[in-house]
C-alpha cells in the first residue's frame, strides 16, 4: 500500500489571513510528508468552491512543493480538461516543465469538473464535458511524444506545431483520471488510465469497483501512450495517540469535507457565501455513536479516524478491497502537523 496526501486547501472560516495561512500550512505539510516517506502529494483543481477547496492554481503550488522537496511525487488530482478551463497545449507544457524541474516526479490526473459552480463560471458546455475530456486525454500524451503535433478533432484543429518542452519521464508521466461517478471506474480502466476515486461506499461496493476496474484495465491497449493500472482512494484521515481527540477533530473535519462536497456536487445549487454546513463538534452522545460505528460490519471505510490501532484496521479494509494507494485527506481544516507524524510513524510501517 502506498500512502499519499491530498490537498483541497480546505478552510471552514476563510479570511484573507486564514487563507494565506492554509497555503503555507499545506506547503509545510508537504515538505514534512517528503521527509516522512509519503509517496505523493496530490493537489486538486477547483474554481470557486469556497471553503471546500481554495486550490485553483495547483500547478503553482506543486512547483513550490517541487522546489522544497527531494523525493515525494507531485500529483495533479485532477487537472480539469474541458478546454474552457485549460487548453491542452498549456497543460502539456506545464506538466512537462514541472516534470523537468522536479526531476521526473509528476503524476498527472485529469477530470471533467463535477460542480455546477465551475461549469457555469467558465461557461463550459455541460453536455460535452466527457467528450472534451476524452479528446484532450488522447491529445496531450501525443504532444509529449511527437516532435511535431498535428490534430483534427471535434473540439480542436491544431496545425503542425512543436509542443515543447518534453517531460523527463519516458514515455511520459503516469496518467490518472477521476472516477467517482458510479460506472466510470470501468470506463477509466478501459482507457488504460490510473483510477482516482473517493472512498465513499461500502467495502463491497468499493471492492466491486476495483474488480470492474482491474478487469477493464487488463484489456486496455491504449495507443500512443503508456498504460497505468493503479487504483487510489481518498479517505478522510486523522490519527492521533488519543482516540477520542482524534475523533472529536477528525470526524468533525470529515463531516465538513462531506457536507461541503454535498453542497457543491449533485445538489443542483450554486451556493454563495458561508456554506450551510455543520461545523461544531459532535455532542457527546453523537460522538460516542460515531466512534462506535467505526469498522463495524456495514460501516463505510470512508474515514480513517482514531488511534493507530483503529487506523490500521481501516487501512486493512482498503488492502482487502484491493486499493493500491491511499491518498489521505488530512487537510480538513484544523491540521496539526503531529497528525501527519502519528500516521507515518505508527500506521504506515505496518503496510510496507
Amino acid at each position, binding site marked *: 500500500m502506498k500512502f499519499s496526501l491530498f490537498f483541497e486547501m480546505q478552510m471552514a472560516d476563510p479570511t484573507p489571513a486564514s487563507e494565506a495561512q492554509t497555503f503555507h500550512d499545506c506547503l509545510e505539510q508537504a515538505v514534512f510528508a517528503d521527509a516522512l516517506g509519503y509517496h505523493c502529494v496530490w493537489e486538486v483543481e477547483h474554481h470557486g468552491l469556497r471553503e471546500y477547496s481554495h486550490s485553483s492554481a495547483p500547478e503553482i503550488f506543486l512547483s513550490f512543493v517541487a522546489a522544497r522537496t527531494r523525493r515525494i511525487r507531485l500529483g495533479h488530482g485532477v487537472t480539469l480538461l474541458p478546454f474552457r478551463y485549460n487548453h491542452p497545449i498549456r497543460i502539456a507544457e506545464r506538466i512537462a516543465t514541472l516534470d523537468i524541474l522536479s526531476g521526473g516526479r509528476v503524476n498527472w490526473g485529469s477530470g471533467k469538473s463535477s460542480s455546477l459552480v465551475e461549469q457555469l463560471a467558465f461557461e463550459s458546455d455541460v453536455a460535452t464535458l466527457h467528450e472534451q475530456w476524452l479528446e484532450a486525454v488522447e491529445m496531450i500524451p501525443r504532444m509529449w511524444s511527437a516532435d511535431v503535433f498535428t490534430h483534427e478533432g471535434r473540439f480542436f484543429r491544431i496545425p503542425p506545431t512543436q509542443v515543447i518542452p518534453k517531460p523527463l519521464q519516458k514515455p511520459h508521466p503516469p496518467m490518472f483520471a477521476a472516477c467517482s*461517478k458510479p460506472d466510470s471506474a470501468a470506463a477509466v480502466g478501459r482507457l488504460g488510465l490510473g483510477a482516482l476515486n473517493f472512498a465513499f461506499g461500502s467495502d*463491497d461496493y*468499493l471492492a*466491486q469497483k476495483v474488480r470492474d476496474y482491474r478487469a477493464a484495465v487488463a484489456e486496455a491497449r491504449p495507443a500512443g501512450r503508456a498504460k497505468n493500472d493503479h487504483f487510489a482512494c481518498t479517505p478522510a484521515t486523522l490519527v492521533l495517540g488519543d482516540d477520542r481527540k482524534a475523533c472529536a477533530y477528525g470526524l468533525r473535519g470529515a463531516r465538513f469535507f462531506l457536507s461541503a462536497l454535498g453542497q457543491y*456536487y449533485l445538489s*443542483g445549487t450554486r451556493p454563495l457565501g458561508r456554506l450551510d454546513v455543520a461545523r461544531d463538534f459532535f455532542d457527546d452522545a453523537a460522538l460516542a455513536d*460515531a466512534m*462506535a460505528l467505526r469498522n463495524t460490519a456495514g460501516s*463505510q471505510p470512508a474515514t480513517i479516524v482514531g488511534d493507530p490501532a483503529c487506523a490500521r484496521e481501516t487501512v486493512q479494509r482498503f488492502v482487502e478491497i484491493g486499493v493500491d494507494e491511499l491518498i489521505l485527506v488530512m487537510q480538513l481544516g484544523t491540521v496539526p502537523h503531529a497528525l501527519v507524524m502519528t500516521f507515518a510513524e505508527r500506521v504506515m510501517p505496518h503496510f510496507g
Partner: protein
Amino acid sequence: MRSRARWRWQFHDACKLAPGLSKCEAAPVRIAVSGGAGQLGSLVLRRLVADRRVREVVSLDLRPPIVPLGKLSFVRADVREPAFARHIKGCDALAHLAFIVTRHAPRAVVDAVNVEGSKNVFRAAAAAGVSRIVHASSIAAYGILPGHPVPLVESAPRRRQADFAYAATKFDVEAFLDDFEKTHPEIAIARMRPSMFVGARMEHPFGRMLRRRAIVDLGGGVPLPIVWDEDAADAFVLALLQGARGAFNLSAEEHLVPAALARAGDLRLVRIPRALVLTLARASAALARTGLIEGTDPAWIESAGVTLAPSSARARADLGWRPRCPTAADVVRRFVEIVPERADPRIALFLRLLAAGSRDAHGAAALRGFAADVHLCLTGRGGGDFALRAKDGRVRVARGAPRPPTAVVTMPATLLLDLLAGRGDFTTAEMTGRVVVEGEGLAGLFVAGIIGSYRAATAARGGRGLVARAAASWIARP
C-alpha cells in the same frame, strides 16, 4: 444512550454481534442463498454482504434481491431445476430459504417446490461439495397440533400435520434431512425452526393487517408464537458462519394472546369469529385457483387455535443468539416503531417536487453522469419504500424497493421530515448511524443533495420560490 440507540436501524445492532461472530474460525467465503428475494432472504443477504469475511454470495430466486449487488450476485433459479448444482458450484455453504409459505397453491405444486425442490437443492449441495447447510424449517415442522411438551424443545417428537400443506412439507423436508444427515456426515446441517416472522416485509394477510395497526383475534385466547425476523436472520447467519449442526428453535418468549399483543403495540383488536375468517380464507383459496387473486392457505387459520411454546435456549447457548426483541411484546413494539403504516403525504409531496425539479436545467446538469437505483427506505411512522432512479440527469420516483438497487439509504421517516425542515444535519446523521447507506458510494451525497436543493429552492425568488415556500411550510409542520 439507550433511547438514542433505539433510533438506529437494527442493522448496526446486528453487526454488534460481530464479537460473537468473529469467534468462528473459518467463515465460509462463498455462500449460496436460495430464496434470497424473500422476507427472510433479504435480511440474510444483507448480513452476509456486510460481513467482510464473506467473499461471495449468490442469491438463487425467481426475483432479484433488494440488496445491492457486488459480491452478491443474482441467478434466476427454480429449486425444481434438475441441474441446480451448477448454481452452487464452488460454494462452501448454502442457506436454503426458498419455500412456499402462506400463498395458496395447488397441493401438487406445494409438494413439488417445498419437498421435492428442497431435496433437489440438498442433493445439489452435496454434489457441489458444500460443507455447511442451514435450512429454514419452522415450528410447524413439529405439527401445529395440541399435546406438545411445554416448553417445546428441539428433541420433542415431530408430528406430520397432513391437512396443513405448509406444516406437512416442513415435516417432510426434516424427515428427508434425518436420512440425508446420515449419508452426508461431512456436511454440517442446521435446521432453524423459527416461530412466525414479524417484520417489515411480511407478504401475507396477517402482515398486511399488522401494517394497518390491526391484529385479528379469532377467539380462543391462544398465544401467538412469533419472532422478530431480523433476530431470526441473525441466528441463520450465526449458524452459517459457525457451521452449526442440529435443530434450533427461534422464538421470542412470553407469548401473548392477540388482545395482549394489541395492548403492547397499541394496535386495534379486530375480533372476528374463526368460522367467518375460515370461510373467507377458503373463498380466497378458491378464488386463487381461478388465478384472480393470490390466496392464503386456509389451513393457516385452522391451525391458529393451537398453543406451541417453543424454547430458544439452545440457540442462545450454542449459537450465542442474542435477539434484540426477546419477548413477544418487544416484537410488537419494535414493529410499531420501525414499520410504517402509510407514507406521510408530506414525504410524497417532497418526492413529487424532487421528480419535477430534476427536469429543470440546473437539476439535470448536477446529476449528469450519475446513474443509480437508490432504495430510499424510510422506517417508522410516515415512512415507506421508494425507488429513486437517477439517469440522464433525471430522477424518477416510484413506490416500492428497486430490484436490485445500486444503493439503499435507510433512515427514519421523521428524520427526513426534520432534515427537510432544516432541523438537524444529514451528514451528522449518516456518521452517527441514523442514516445507513449500503452500496453505491455517492448515494448518501445524492440524498443529501436532493434535501439541499429542496432547501435551496425555498429561498428562490419569483413564483418558483413562492410555490416551494408554500410546500415547505406544510412539509415543515412539526
